[in-house]
């Protein structure tokens, strides 16, 4: 009885009629609704159900936050201390070309850096933790795409990072920093930060699915951040670096995002490197970098996640 009760994958997707237990099965009953990406694999998942799933899976992680007050306190205290230290301790020591005010200069850099660090470390740790838990197996038995499970984690990471963005902004305002190019431009700057945060969150996700456990993720999720942060114009002007490092810092995505924000906030840019495309088109460069990073990390993360969990 077995062979003819089975719908073989190939036969079903050819839409052939099959005889089941002596009856003709209507073509409709196994003519699967094709998904919007990839043959056969995403049956029944439409853009609408995908976004609903991502929303629910993001909310799943955010609903934990009220029960982790220590985490919230940490995400408020850490950026506050960092911002105030930069502005009041180092601000006087760093001379900017053209004598611009350091506070005006550094806030955009701190915002960009905060988004990188917050999103990447929150997501790498978050995913590594998820993988060590059993709930992920339950999610994997639900009719969801693997991508939506991961997207829930990366979204939650970005949202956590934006708590620190908010705190940094408030501290900046307290210290006298102002966005001087209008509300529209300021909002656009935050959109660019959001997009970049999402890209960094996917980098974190890739690290999270690649390491063996949450403890490793805590380290691996942050080590690569330091060169990225210090080889940029986020906290110091590029012109202060040795000549051979200047192009590296110039092409660093973080420099592009920082410069874009400075431009949109009407703050001093003081990029300091001549004739580099990202310095001349920081907004376009930021968006391009973010999309390019996701173009690589998203499929790679999904692939690693599937390979890792189904063996």
């Amino acid at each position, binding site marked *: 009885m077995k062979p003819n009760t089975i719908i073989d994958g190939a036969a079903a997707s050819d839409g052939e009629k099959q005889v089941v237990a002596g009856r003709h099965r209507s073509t409709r009953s196994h003519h699967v609704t094709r998904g919007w990406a990839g043959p056969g694999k995403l049956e029944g998942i439409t853009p609408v159900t995908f976004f609903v799933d991502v929303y629910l899976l993001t909310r799943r992680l955010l609903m934990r936050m009220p029960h982790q007050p220590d985490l919230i306190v940490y995400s408020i205290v850490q950026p506050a201390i960092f911002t105030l230290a930069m502005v009041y301790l180092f601000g006087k020591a760093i001379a900017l070309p053209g004598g611009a005010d350091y506070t005006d200069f550094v806030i955009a850099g701190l915002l960009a850096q905060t988004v990188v660090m917050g999103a990447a470390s929150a997501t790498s740790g978050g995913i590594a933790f998820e993988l060590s838990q059993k709930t992920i197996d339950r*999610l994997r038995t639900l009719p969801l795409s693997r991508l939506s499970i991961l997207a829930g984690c990366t979204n939650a990471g970005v949202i956590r990072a934006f708590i620190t963005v908010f705190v940094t902004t408030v501290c900046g305002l307290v210290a006298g920093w102002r966005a001087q190019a209008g509300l529209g431009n300021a909002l656009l700057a935050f959109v660019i930060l959001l997009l970049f945060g999402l890209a960094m969150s996917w980098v974190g996700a890739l690290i999270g699915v690649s390491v063996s456990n949450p403890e490793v993720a805590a380290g691996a999720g942050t080590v690569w951040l330091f060169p990225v942060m210090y080889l940029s114009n986020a906290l110091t002007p590029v012109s202060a670096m040795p000549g051979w490092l200047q192009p590296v810092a110039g092409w660093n995505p973080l420099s592009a995002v920082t410069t874009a924000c400075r431009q949109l906030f009407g703050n001093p840019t003081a990029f300091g490197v001549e004739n580099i495309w990202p310095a001349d088109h920081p907004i376009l460069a930021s968006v391009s970098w973010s999309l390019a990073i996701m173009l690589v990390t998203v499929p790679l993360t999904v692939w690693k996640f599937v390979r890792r969990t189904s063996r």
Partner: protein
Amino acid sequence: MDNGIYTENLTKKYGAVYGLHGLNLQVSAGTVLGLLGPNGAGKTTTVNILTTLLKPDGGSAWVGGFNVARHPLQVRRRIGVSGQETAVEPLLTGAENLELFGRLHRLSRRHARGRAQELLDTFDLTAAAGRLARTYSGGMRRRLDLAISLIKRPSILFLDEPTTGLDPRSRTATWDLIRELVGSGVTLLLTTQYLEEADQLADLIAVVDQGRLIAEGTVEELKTRTSDDRIEIVLRDHELLPLAATILDRFATSEAVVTRSERRIAVMAPHKPGLLTQVLREMDAAAIELEDVELRRPTLDDVFFTLTGRPMDVKAQHEMATVE
């Protein structure tokens, strides 16, 4: 729609170790298969492959008419799963857990909420509905996990050791619930180490050992697989265990299982009148004093023992290994 489960020559290797070694199973729609086997037999591996969590290395499997490797989403849409380890969100309340998984199963918010209330009630969790699952006891978490697996009213259900960690009252309640579900036409694959559970719930039992199917049938059929009786003796003096074992060996159809700590020896022996009297006479002649003697008809434990030459009970297995 065919809600059965079929596997054909299913094989899974973990490195060099076989988790499954050519497993053939068949669960007809609306029936309950009890997958029975000792630790490491391959029960969880089977469930994980059938629920699309693991990729098999060989063979194929169909659930609800769909090949699990080719149409995982179609399979997932039809199944409910409660794994061996509970998988609930610790930082959500019981009610929030049910609602979340209901909505991820594409129930509307209202429908998910209503269904959550129903299941909280069924599983005796209403009083704890608003508490974080983190604060639940092991048994409560197990019940919440079972409830979650039913949120969408699946037509095919997989339960991996569903009553492990439940107290006797919850266990009986869960059995009743499972019977009710099966009455409503659900196909169920249930793994268990409790023979009683398989006996209570399953229409058919598949005994697996080392990744292979070693016997299949109704409880009654399996019991007739061995016509032998089981003889157990308890000695007064554990020094005499080896001697007593050699004597029993002469009557036995199986190797003697010696449980040293209890000074107990068990064997299978032909169902023959006068056999026990003869055993006792020989023990007496060898000056072996007995504290207890038992002769009984075979249980599923004995069936497992006859089939594999090893006791099903893990503790007994361990004891046997230390005696050798």
